[in-house]
């Protein structure tokens, strides 16, 4: 088969190219450990990908070069268009979508390998390794594809809540998963071990496997709350990596194994980091539901204890402040308020106020979500402080502006042992002299529980959309300076 432009070179030349590509991927990831080198790391990693693809194209005989070029072009154009046209707030679902495509490709490759490997004229065995790895890649890839589609759809608000609930759903998940595994076993035994069945009998087994895995993937992700989707996407990311690694076993391809495994590890680690900082287990995210914080006592807590404020009042407080900390949350992302927030911070800084951002590790809906948004709005990297380093400074802070955040500033996590978020580390903003909380209403955040912070004596609520409110603050500030 090796009859491409470079096809006269020994196979080790191609393997060497793959080794170099693997080194590029590794170095790319290593550069991701610091913001200063991360851009370069991304470039190096993409260079590795380019090299690997180029070497493959040049090494093997291409039966239909036009078709191949066309499909590369189409894919590249679609990918680039999506990447360019999407808003920063829509990143999570876009990453999910891309991820699904990777998984889907693995499924198709494994299928095509099976189709190609069989010779219609004979009933020769396909080999245990090929069928086993193809079955695994097929299941993992398909679950990734359909799971990611549902996850992206949920994040984008296109997919609602699951009509099938609890036990029923779990039974159905188990059934379809079992069906996929059975189809895989049939494939392995029939064409791999026995090798006696005619083509027509085993090919459908692969597609049955795909169908069952597809339904399983949908059933798995559908019932999970929209806010848990980032965890699911990280997990699916890990799975798409593992699918690629498995395909690498099918094709005996170093680059696929190494790169796929690296991604598998990355996704898994991100998954556990997210679960940890939410103080939940992965099974709880996938199969449990958030413990319900009694809605009734919400009224009790807030009743008569809420102080409302206005942009003008806040402006006066800021005027007197020496140190201000801004705590952004998911609402800032939804409202696209990052530019207004950055403008406010700049104005304050200009008049000599010491302004910092307090960034909780799971603020927003993706790890590092707030950092990415604020960086987009040109906020200094040094101004963004992490939980551990900003918490001790709140007692010396005059004003904290909480905008669109809720769970990450909820004192119940520290004070109420029965709370569903008990034990989760939070930003202890209530230590500051005064706290301004900007959100549209008293409705709860992602975890669905009330927030005693709103009822504290030193807290005032600035109701309204985050972007609008921040803009109002900027205007009020400009008027008086």
């Amino acid at each position, binding site marked *: 088969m090796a009859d491409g432009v470079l096809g006269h070179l020994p196979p080790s030349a191609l393997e060497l190219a793959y080794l170099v590509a693997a080194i590029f991927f590794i170095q790319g990831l290593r550069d991701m450990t610091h913001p200063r080198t991360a851009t370069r790391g991304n470039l190096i990693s993409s260079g590795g990908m380019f090299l690997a693809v180029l070497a493959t194209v040049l090494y093997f005989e291409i039966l239909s070069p036009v078709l191949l070029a066309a499909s590369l072009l189409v894919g590249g154009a679609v990918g680039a268009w999506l990447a360019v046209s999407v808003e920063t707030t829509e990143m999570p679902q876009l990453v999910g979508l*891309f991820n699904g495509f990777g998984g889907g490709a693995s499924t198709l490759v494994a299928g095509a390998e099976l189709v*190609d490997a069989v010779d219609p004229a004979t009933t020769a065995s396909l080999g245990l390794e090929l069928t086993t790895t193809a079955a695994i890649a097929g299941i993992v890839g398909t679950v990734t594809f359909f799971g990611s589609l549902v996850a992206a759809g949920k994040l984008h608000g296109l997919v609602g809540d699951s009509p099938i609930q609890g036990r029923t759903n779990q039974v159905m998940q188990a059934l379809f998963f079992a069906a996929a595994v059975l189809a895989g076993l049939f494939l392995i035994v029939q064409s791999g071990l026995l090798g006696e069945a005619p083509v027509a009998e085993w090919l459908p087994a692969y597609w049955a496997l795909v169908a069952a895995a597809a339904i399983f993937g949908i059933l798995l992700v559908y019932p999970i709350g929209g806010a848990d989707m980032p965890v699911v996407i990280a997990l699916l990311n890990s799975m*798409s*990596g593992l699918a690629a690694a498995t395909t690498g076993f099918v094709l005996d391809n170093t680059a696929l194994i190494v790169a796929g495994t690296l991604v598998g590890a990355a996704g898994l680690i991100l998954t556990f980091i997210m679960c940890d900082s939410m103080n939940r287990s992965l099974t709880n995210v996938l199969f449990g539901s958030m413990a319900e914080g009694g809605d009734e006592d919400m009224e009790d807590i807030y009743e008569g204890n809420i102080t409302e404020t206005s942009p003008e009042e806040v402006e006066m407080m800021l005027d007197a402040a020496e140190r201000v900390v801004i705590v952004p949350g998911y609402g800032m992302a939804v409202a696209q308020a990052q530019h207004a927030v950055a403008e406010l911070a700049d104005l304050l800084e200009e008049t000599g106020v010491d302004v910092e951002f307090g960034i909780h590790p799971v603020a927003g809906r993706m790890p590092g979500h707030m950092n990415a948004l604020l960086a987009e709005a040109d906020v200094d990297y040094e101004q963004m402080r992490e939980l551990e380093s900003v918490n001790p400074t709140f007692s010396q802070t005059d004003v904290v502006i909480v905008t669109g955040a809720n769970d990450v500033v909820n004192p119940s996590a520290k004070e109420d042992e029965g709370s569903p978020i008990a034990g989760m580390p939070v930003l202890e903003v209530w230590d500051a002299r005064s706290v301004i909380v900007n959100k549209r209403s008293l409705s709860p955040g992602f975890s669905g529980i009330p927030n005693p912070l709103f009822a504290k004596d030193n807290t005032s609520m600035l109701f309204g959309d985050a972007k609008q409110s921040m803009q109002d603050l900027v205007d009020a500030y400009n008027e008086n300076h």
Partner: protein
Amino acid sequence: MSLVTNLTLFVLAAFLGYEIITKIPTNLHTPLMSGANAISGITLLGSVLVAGSGETMLATVLGVLAVVMATINVVGGYLVSHFMLSQFNRGGR
């Protein structure tokens, strides 16, 4: 290459991935996610093989579809994380 050799590569890469990824700070996790995502599009290599040299019609069709999907993943993933990261650099002036 034997199965065990492939497994060895897998194990080494898994350890290496663990050591590197745990060093990456939280604020870079979002670009990391889309960057890693792009790497998982490495399955494009397999897609190119079957699309370009598939011996049956069916395999070629599957291959072409796979190439399109994998390329979206690769190109989109790298671009998204590039955009995000270049904003970090701007912000980090």
